[in-house]
């Protein structure tokens, strides 16, 4: 078998050194009646040719986003990945290296993480960022727990503009941890008064901008309301490219900023692996979950990087840790960092402008169709339309016509009265021809 270097004579020599009669002697601690007599009930080994054939066939049963006009966002966004990014992350030393616990032979990873942390802090307008979490939704839940620890309270208020699955994750954790959650009703028009939900028992308010429906929200009054009661503002974003065009949450007074980094450097991958970004004010750093790379020197006085403030983490604090998290999203964070370095500030801003331009154009085209109304005042690259028919059926019809038209909002929030709403995203990859095709197909489906 091509991945197993030992042959029969190797095994015989090794067994002899060990002093075991046969290999099963080394498994004798397994209770006799629990040892598998034969092989597992699955096919035998397969060559590369056979595996490729099987998996290629499976992959062909999916519609690749790049093969059709594509307008789906709702927490994951289709952007162009420069060729160098995927090439660089496949270098052996990045792909097959372990967590940098031995810093002398992991400066590549640690140096890149230090750069990543700086980029995330700059992007979010915050003072410090960690080396990444699993994804935006778990980062959001961890931020909630961090706010509970800092304020010594356990009630979180969740905006109705928060991605419904992010809210579900936070609610699951709160329910099982015995904490309280106030979940505002889904807020299509960004008209909620979340300030009214904040009191002296509130530990944090969690608000997303751009929100799930695409609205841009002013966090400053919410920050003020939270701080007036000794609560923290946790700002959430799901489209990292938006930070190249919209005001950062840090500028608006957020205490903790979390979000999904997939848009930069990482493919759609049917939902994972993704990249949780987590940033906060410096004074809260000891309550931050996740790994942190820090600067120091080595015995020769050369600048070096090392994982630091580890006493927050599970391998030291165990049941008193800030989190149970062990991995970060290392390779995805590297891809993010490489892509952002290639873009640079000017490139990111231009990319954001293109995204916004395409979304504005699409909104105009769709809004011009009879019966369709665009519900957002201000938006970045995502907006919501109301249509005269049920959104789920509409999206299925569009798919049959070869257009992926967006998310029927009721898919993530059934029974919320959103059955006629579609959340639509446009990126730099949504060409004018694609946008025209969508408008034409939509008109035909109504």
């Amino acid at each position, binding site marked *: *078998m091509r991945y197993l*270097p030992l042959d029969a004579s190797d095994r015989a020599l*090794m067994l002899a050194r060990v*002093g075991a009669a046969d*290999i099963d002697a*080394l498994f004798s601690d*397994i209770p006799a009646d*629990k040892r598998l007599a034969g092989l*597992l009930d699955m096919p035998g080994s397969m060559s590369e040719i056979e595996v490729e054939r*099987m998996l290629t066939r499976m992959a062909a*049963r*999916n*519609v*690749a986003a790049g*093969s059709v006009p594509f307008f789906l966002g709702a927490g994951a966004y289709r952007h162009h990945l420069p060729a160098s990014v995927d090439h*660089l992350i496949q270098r052996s030393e990045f792909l097959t*290296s*372990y967590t940098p616990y*031995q*810093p*002398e*032979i*992991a*400066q590549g990873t640690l140096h890149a993480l*230090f750069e990543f942390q700086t980029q995330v802090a700059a992007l979010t307008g915050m*003072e*410090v960022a960690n080396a990444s979490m*699993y994804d935006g939704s778990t980062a959001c839940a961890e931020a909630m727990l961090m706010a509970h620890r800092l304020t010594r309270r356990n009630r979180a208020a969740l905006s109705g503009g928060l991605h419904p699955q992010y809210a579900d994750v936070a609610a699951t954790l709160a329910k099982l*941890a015995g904490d309280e959650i106030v979940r505002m009703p889904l807020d299509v028009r960004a008209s909620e008064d979340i300030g009214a939900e904040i009191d002296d028992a509130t530990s944090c308010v969690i608000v997303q*901008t751009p929100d799930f429906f695409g609205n*841009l929200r002013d966090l400053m009054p919410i920050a003020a309301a939270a701080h007036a009661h000794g609560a923290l503002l946790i700002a959430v974003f799901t489209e990292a490219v938006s930070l190249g*065009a*919209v*005001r950062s949450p840090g500028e608006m007074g957020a205490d903790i900023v979390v979000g999904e980094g997939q848009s930069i450097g990482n493919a759609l991958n049917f939902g994972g*692996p993704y990249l949780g970004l987590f940033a906060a004010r410096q004074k809260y750093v000891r309550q931050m979950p996740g*790994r942190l790379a820090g*600067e120091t*020197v*080595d015995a*020769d006085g*050369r600048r070096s990087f090392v994982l630091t403030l580890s006493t927050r*983490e*599970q391998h030291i604090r165990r049941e008193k840790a800030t989190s*149970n998290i*062990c*991995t970060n999203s*290392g390779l995805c964070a*590297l891809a993010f960092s490489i892509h952002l370095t290639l*873009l640079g*500030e000017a*490139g990111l801003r*231009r990319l954001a402008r293109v995204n916004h*331009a*395409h979304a*504005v154009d699409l909104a105009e085209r769709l809004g011009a169709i009879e019966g369709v109304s665009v519900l957002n005042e201000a*938006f970045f690259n995502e907006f919501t339309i109301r249509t005269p028919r049920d959104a789920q059926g509409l999206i299925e019809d569009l*798919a049959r016509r070869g257009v*992926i038209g967006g998310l029927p909002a009721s*898919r993530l929030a059934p029974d919320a009265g959103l059955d006629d709403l579609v959340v639509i995203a446009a990126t*730099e990859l949504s060409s004018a021809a694609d946008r025209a095709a969508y408008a034409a197909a939509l008109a035909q489906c109504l």
Partner: protein
Amino acid sequence: MNSQGRPTRPTPARPARRDSFTGNRALDMEEALIFETGRLDATGVDIEEPPPFAARLGRHARAGEIGLPGLSEPEAVRHYVRLSRNNYSIDAGLYPLGSCTMKHNPRLNEKMARLPGFCDVHPLQPISTAQGALELIDALAHKLLTMTGMSAVAMSPKAGAHGELCGMMAIKAAVAARGEEQTRRVVLVPDSAHGTNPASAALIGFSVRAVPAGADGVVSAQSVRAALGPDVAAIMLTNPNTCGLFEREIVAIADAMHEAGAYFYCDGANFNAVVGKTRPGDLGVDVMHINLHKTFSTPHGGGGPGAGPVVFSDRLAPFAPVPHVVRNGGALDLVEHGKGSLAFGRMSAFHGQMGMFVRALAFILSHGADGLKQASEDAVLAANYVRASLVDLIAAPFGERACMHEVLFDDRWLKDAGLTTLDFAKAMIDEGYHPMTVYFPLVVHGAMLIEPTESESKASLDLFIMTLRDLAMSALAGERERFLDAPRHAPRRRLDETRAARQPILRWTKPASA
């Protein structure tokens, strides 16, 4: 908590060493930060400025500098290539990290994961356009159930620790369904457990009660019974355990837990030892997470991403979280909402680490039933070969009996040499090896946990063994500089970790004068 510290500041510190004008040593190169070499207006991506249009950002437009430098493509490529060369990797050498299973990462996996039909699919596309993705998830789920002999699987946890949290949440939900949420608040955890075990339990309000292993390194059913009470919700046991031993009383322990109305969580980090040899479901396990990045070869990527699907027994299957794949006639569908079921909730947005599923399935298909069994046997054989070849020189608390896929040593034998496990580990670096897992598990002093995996040739194992023997004999002969000065040949010498913690610098900041 772990309260046993160790030296974290190299002494004596020396002034900076410069052997050349650049500070480089031929192919061993120094590299600056992008913030020092990049420019805010430089870019390596060509993007056409859109024609003028009326923006709709309202008053939310971002003004002011962000602080993100850019590089042209050649500069960026050179930067990251040079960084990469300062990393050790599996592709370059043996990583004997116990409980990490650093096996070869097949490139077929990378090729399959990059098929557009897998990587260019959005999780919320209409289900009819993602049937192949659901088929893959279902196929992998089925393989995991076959290997573990369990009833149901949650594919959504994003990493091992996330899977532990998922399993413990299911247990808490099951306990609550019986109305015992207020009474059953304790989880039994052996001291040898990985830190994520008590951390996961504590996250959802369980308190942890230690259950000791015996002198033979395994937990006895008797000590479990002694720790059991009506206040116990579950035990969290790693099998094989972190000392590299099969928990031979596991069936009796499972029985004891079930008789007491409690559940059995198994940490599956060491599953590589027993795939195809025994099934956790047959041993009485109620729930177990599987680390795809350990047992099933998905790459570690410098720290992640991982994936931690969780298998459930009949007892706990009803409480598994959403989402999961179901068959509706000939087509596949996704259950995304728990309403009307006992599902305890949702672990993360979307459906799980699809990219890692493709890789793991490619690995499992490649090995097949015969290959998986052979891999486990080779992994266990390799660890025992290392044990038998070192136990005369390096103290092993359970060295006289067979281990599973990893072997545990401690630092008793170094005492008279005045050296520590850390010193020994750093000297391995100079020999071209990543050190083994050190100072874990906490149950022995100065632990050294070695897991070679099935991916090493006999020649590779022989060289590794001979190197460790050479180092051990050197230590015992009093050749201290080899260890105290180590590593001497790595891109960096020992770091001042004290300074990093006392004066944390967690990001680059523009110098005031600039």
